[in-house]
């Protein structure tokens, strides 16, 4: 019984959602009953129109003209990589190398602007397919003051980040959902590793590979070095994102909502 208040909140939420859904349904049925005038196709932005052309010539053969996939390649409108992409930031690095083992060729010659246009086209398509969802402002239910306290306190965000430094104006360029994704799971960064050999010699560099048996790195001179782990004294890995990973099981949803509410004030 002590859980009752939560339940009431949930029910309120349900009614709110139902209200939105019903309104949407009414609009749809009104549209369906309207005379044959077909609604104009969603106008794409100039970038999306450009992207449509590039997509058509470079990608549609495998992913289909509508990006919904074919037998050869997946539906990009359900692709986590596309969802997480913002203006080409995920697509760009991905297209550069492709995924040859899965038959996805590399497109190293695409200019960054072209990648951004493809990104705009794919996001426009996702919007067409998934219909109108709640605006991202619906995510802003948290308390910015509590978010600031979390930033400086329990979240220990201020250990590495600053509102006037790396995060200055972050909300001006990043939407709430992308912002949430960014702090929940930031894009991968190079990992540094230090290997101590039995002789006591230390080898440091950027981690290339690490499993139970092998560690491989590129050292400061750009040389690739690989070692069997049972012939090393120690392998110390410094993952710059470890703090973010460790937070995942620690967050309450309120922490996330509050933190977002705070971060969106950094305009």
């Amino acid at each position, binding site marked *: 019984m002590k*859980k009752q208040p*939560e*339940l009431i*909140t*949930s*029910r309120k*939420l*349900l009614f709110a*959602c139902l209200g939105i859904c019903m309104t949407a349904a009414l609009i749809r049925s009104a549209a369906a009953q309207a005379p044959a005038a077909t609604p104009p196709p969603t106008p794409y932005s100039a970038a999306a129109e450009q992207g449509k052309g590039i997509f058509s010539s470079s990608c549609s053969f495998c992913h289909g003209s509508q990006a919904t996939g074919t*037998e*050869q*390649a*997946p539906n990009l409108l359900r692709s*986590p990589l596309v*969802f*997480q992409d913002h203006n080409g930031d995920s697509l760009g690095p991905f297209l550069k190398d492709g995924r040859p*083992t*899965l*038959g996805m060729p590399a497109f190293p010659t695409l200019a960054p602007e072209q990648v951004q246009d493809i990104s705009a086209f794919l*996001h426009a398509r*996702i*919007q067409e397919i*998934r219909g109108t*969802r*709640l*605006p*991202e*402002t*619906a*995510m*802003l*239910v*948290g308390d910015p003051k509590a978010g600031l306290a979390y930033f400086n306190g329990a979240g220990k965000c201020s250990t590495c980040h600053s509102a006037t430094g790396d995060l200055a104006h972050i909300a001006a360029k990043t*939407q*709430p*959902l*992308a912002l*949430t*994704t960014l702090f*929940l*799971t930031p894009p991968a960064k190079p990992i540094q590793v230090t290997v101590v050999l039995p002789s006591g010699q230390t080898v440091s560099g950027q981690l290339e*590979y690490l*499993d*139970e*048996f092998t560690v491989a790195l590129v050292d400061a001179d750009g040389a690739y070095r690989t070692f069997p782990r049972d012939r090393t004294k120690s392998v110390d890995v410094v993952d710059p994102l470890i703090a973010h990973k460790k937070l*995942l*099981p620690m*967050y309450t*949803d309120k922490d*996330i*909502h509050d933190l977002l509410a705070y971060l969106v004030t950094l305009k």
Partner: protein
Amino acid sequence: MKCRPILSLASLLFLPICLSAQTLDPEALHRPPTDTWPTYNGDYSGQRYSTLSQINAANVSSLGLAWTHHVEFGNESYAQQASEGRRIKSTPLLVDGVLYFTITDNVWAMDALTGRELWHYAWPNNRAIHVANRGVGMYGKWLYFMSPDNYLVSLNAKDGSERWRVQVADVKQDFFSATSPLIIGNHVIVGPGNNDNIRAWLESRDPETGALQWKWWVDPDPGAPGSETWVDNATMAKGGGFPWLTGTYDPELNLYYLGTGNGVPTDRPPHPTPEGDSLYTASIVALNPDTGKLVWAYQVTPHDTHDYDAGQTPIIFDGEFQGKKRKLLAQVSRNGYFFLLDRVTGEHLLTTKYMPETNWAKDIDAEGRPIPDYTKDANPPGALVSPYPIGATNWWSPSYDPKTGLIYCNAARTWAYFTTSGYGRFRSPPDYLTVAIDYKTGKVVWTHELGDKSGVLISGLLTTAGNLLFGGDSFGNFLAMDPATGKTLWHASLGQFVTNSAMTYELNGRQYLLVAANDTWFAFAVPESEAKNNGHIKGH
């Protein structure tokens, strides 16, 4: 021509008196899998435990490659072009020295001694979802295979020639099939899958003709038991819950055990209230295989809203629980919880959380079922949920080792942000580990990290009387672990991660260990000299 003594009445009923060529003796289904591996899981129990011990903890360091075989099926095949579909996910059957395995749209027979291909059957290209095929079933000299576009196909094991095909479901309604048919008596048990809002079922077919014997509907008829857990008949009539993995069977009790899929859509009413469990979705059920009638059901995720189906293998074994010898059933479930039941009655015995990150439930009810925390459903500001829909585990076969009393499962640490705002989607990449669970307490005894490099797939597991646990990590290493501690005893880098569950067999006095990585098979054995020194191949 090879004749075998026919001992049982059942054999006389089901097979001609004299067996010729590769023919499965039905009695083999009731023995531990040694020189024969007659079902997807090796036997009916789902334990994936082999009594073979020629390869054992003492000599595993000498384990070496016996043969390898790369599968070719032509660039024109749609399966070849499907990213997930072209991987070997099946566990082969082994009968009279011949291995039978599948990739979606394709069936092969292969010499178990050398890996040489004997025949290849290719199903015509089609527009179904080519996500996987988990293997064939066998009855006498006939094989049974599900095509992705939902035909049950019977092949002659001798040469792969097609005997007949029957349509189980229509691909135009977006059904797709990947299961390995299970043969129980004269029943071929199969079920299709579908991701849409549609009524789910399991069915049985006649092994001789393919004629339908019975259908069991996951979503009840209006007014039938279980229907009271749905908001209305219309929702129930398309409530989903496809049992998409092969179940297990207790011949003494004559019960077929399987896990059902998740209910759909995930935001179906009544929601978000605690009423409306959506039976029999996300449940472990016991069916009479002769009639398809439900005997008992236990739901592991009431009113699922996160795609936590309960398809995972219901492992059956006899063992002590709280001082009493019992007929048990255990499931390491996709929802992050471990369940132990009495398989005679379905009585609940134990529930524990094996993945500590799991946060979609707020408590366990009196019957051991997790109580969903509906604040963890998709909502406008969003909820951080573990596990994400890939699950805390998935179809990756678990294993039970009666010598340790531990259940082993490959699991994934995952997170997703469920929001109804915006168009993005956050999912952290799965971070894999092997977990060992003491069935008596449900406690995790040890874990072994496997890394996060294999996308949405990790290997299944196998235990043997040689005190070994076999599985693959996410990097491409095939591992032999100590089942008591999880410590790695041996490994081989296959260059690509393991995509199926290893199996093992005895042939000409030698034990082989067989595993697949993408489109290549790898068979391992200890050197001949080692094999001779270790005469008692059959273990205890």
